[in-house]
């Protein structure tokens, strides 16, 4: 229970079904921890893990008459989510902490705590659906009824065991329906605005967060400054560090030319940031690593799918084929814009999530 509308409504729905519900909030990050560091706000409000949110969750639990506890997983969160987030940026990639959090915290640590305290399943406020396929004897992850809220992109790492113990009660509902239900249950958070950003990065300014975090750790940002080069290999300027860039970025390149320039590629080994025109951003194939398959146990032959390469991406038709253990190659029907290493590629068969992996690279 984050203290937001979705997870609060889930608790209310399960309670109304007569289930034995225990409310849990994961304390993952101390929002005041970096307060006062250069460029960071003094205090943060209305965000995950803030005192206000815990207070809201507690009020909801009290309204529903369910036991409620806060469990501290700050250490694991820092180790498995925050540090990799920082390291990925410093390596010139664009990470997705929410997927890491789902894989390592919400559907791992929280599931263990749930089992330890005697709960058979965990329920979250994610917009997604879980179903059991009798034919294949596999648990399926499916897109929700409200496609605009679809969160399956962040859930591709769930294993069969995790899915078998998970409930997504909001999977069949739209956001307005959820709010209406929250009002009906007199939940104090019914009108609370949705959270949008990465929960531990105030204001969404990840560069400032990186600098504040590294300075708190006593580390200077590692030397990742280098050259700005064109796709043809011509040096056209310098940059202050690869972590300031993401593929597809147009603003803040620090070079002026006649036509709009975009980041095409970040070369971690040479610290070069490759820039080019819009057309050069398009790639037809990508390679994904650390692949997790959900609807099928293995990929014996090439499979026709649609692929999301970022959360807000319209799934694009493609073929996927195995490219080694835990690796796949995806070939799109049409070249896709700004395929970004560090992001996830999630594979769909209609509404069913086939699986997903981490984008390693793309080729034209």
């Amino acid at each position, binding site marked *: 229970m984050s203290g937001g509308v979705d997870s609060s409504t889930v608790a209310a729905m399960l309670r109304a079904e007569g289930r034995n519900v225990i409310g849990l909030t994961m*304390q993952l990050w101390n929002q005041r921890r970096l307060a006062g560091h250069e460029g960071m706000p003094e205090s943060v409000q209305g965000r995950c893990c803030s005192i206000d949110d815990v207070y809201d969750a*507690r009020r909801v639990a009290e309204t529903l008459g369910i036991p409620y*506890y806060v469990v501290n997983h700050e250490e694991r969160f820092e180790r498995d989510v925050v540090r990799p987030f920082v390291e990925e940026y410093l390596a010139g990639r664009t990470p997705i902490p929410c997927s890491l959090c789902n894989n390592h915290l919400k559907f791992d640590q929280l599931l263990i705590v749930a*089992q330890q305290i005697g709960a058979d399943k965990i329920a979250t406020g994610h917009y997604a659906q879980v179903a059991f396929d009798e034919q294949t004897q596999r648990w399926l992850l499916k897109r929700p009824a409200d496609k605009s809220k679809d969160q399956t992109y962040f859930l591709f790492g769930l294993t069969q065991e995790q899915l078998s113990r998970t409930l997504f009660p909001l999977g069949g509902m739209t956001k307005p329906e959820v709010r209406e239900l929250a009002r009906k249950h007199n939940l104090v958070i019914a009108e609370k605005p949705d959270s949008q950003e990465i929960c531990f990065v105030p204001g969404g300014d990840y560069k400032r967060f990186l600098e504040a975090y590294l300075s708190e750790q006593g580390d200077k940002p590692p030397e990742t400054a280098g050259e700005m080069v064109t796709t043809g290999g011509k040096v056209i300027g310098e940059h202050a560090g690869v972590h300031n860039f993401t593929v597809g970025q147009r603003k803040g390149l620090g070079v002026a030319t006649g036509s709009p320039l975009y980041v095409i590629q970040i070369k971690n080994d040479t610290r070069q940031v490759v820039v080019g025109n819009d057309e050069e951003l398009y790639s037809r194939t990508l390679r994904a690593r650390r692949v997790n398959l959900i609807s099928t146990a293995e990929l014996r032959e090439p499979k026709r799918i649609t692929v999301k390469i970022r959360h807000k991406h319209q799934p694009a038709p493609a073929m996927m084929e195995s490219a080694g253990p835990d690796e796949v190659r995806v070939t799109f029907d049409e070249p896709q814009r700004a395929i970004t290493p560090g992001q996830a590629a999630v594979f769909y068969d209609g509404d069913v999530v086939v699986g997903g992996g981490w984008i390693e690279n793309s080729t034209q």
Partner: protein
Amino acid sequence: MRRVYLDNNATTPVLPEVLEAMRPYFGEHFGNASSIHHHGQETRAAVERARESVAALLGCRASEIVFTSGGTEADNLAIFGLVRPGDHVITSTIEHHAVLNACKHLAANGCEVTYIPVDGRGLVDPADVKRALRPNTKLITIMLANNETGVLQPVAEIGKIAAETDVYFHTDAVQAAGKIATDVNQIGCDLLTISAHKLHGPQGVGALCVRKGTRLEPMLHGGSHERSRRAGTENVPGIVGLGKAAELARAALERADDLRMAAARDHLERELLEIEATGLNGGGAPRVSNTTNIYFDGIEGEALVIALDLKGLAVSTGAACSSGAIEPSHVLIAMGLRPDRAKSSIRFSLGKQNTPEDVDFGLGLIPETVARLRDLSPVWPKAVVSQKLGASS
């Protein structure tokens, strides 16, 4: 569901006699104790009777008792009432946050603070206190009984050191008062803190004993209440409750009720230590009679507390942070426990209301719950040969 409360170091239930004593002061006896008329006289008398009861429990004069809003205010009054920029303060690493964070504030505002470490049993060495003295040392503040382990500090020896060197000595006796004889003359302290709700009185009231001759600056400025040491209209029902609780605690100590409690605690402790890979924190040191703190290797104390609460047993781990999530105990870390062992530790603390059946209820739940948690733990080795580990190092 049957519920058993074994977390009496957090707070204790108000005894029925205490509640009865307080009740008229929420109703018919409503006067302001500073008023000169009949109504004021009634409540003034009640406040002064309570002051005498508290003084009797602590072996001091009634005029030396200052009522406060609780233990934290009393600790803060002792510390901020005495220490000025340029002064040096000696405290320990295992104090309650009411003292630790007050000292942290001093350190950030021109004072020097020395934190005396503890040994593996959780004990401060008085020789360390003596060595830490400086010409500008103004105050030594070291607790009597630790809230997490129940370990009793050698306060009488520290009192001697303070007296020899003319340094003020404050002791936070919140977890000791009512559990063991707590006499300011025997301790040799200048200031001593107690809290009503730790000895079956109400929450929101405490007292600071300020020995005669101790020049204390008030923190709250206003009327001349509490001999100008603590302004603000007295919390009469609370003070009356504290007085009654102190009176009952004194009578219970005279009856040696603490020995009965120690027997119940020892039984609980012995049985829990039969579980494999457990150990006692603070073993080998003198302790108050109601507390035991035990580690259960391979489990998260947090999960055990929740699992037990869902079965009706209330116990606790170390301190909770503002969200209610559990943080590793600074006390156990200061005693040299590994962080994972500190996080696997649970405090059990008995109160006057607990019966032998309560202890048996706990003993019926804890072993099976620990076993279940270990079965599901990713770090607990499966099917290891049973190995009984010794007490904490």
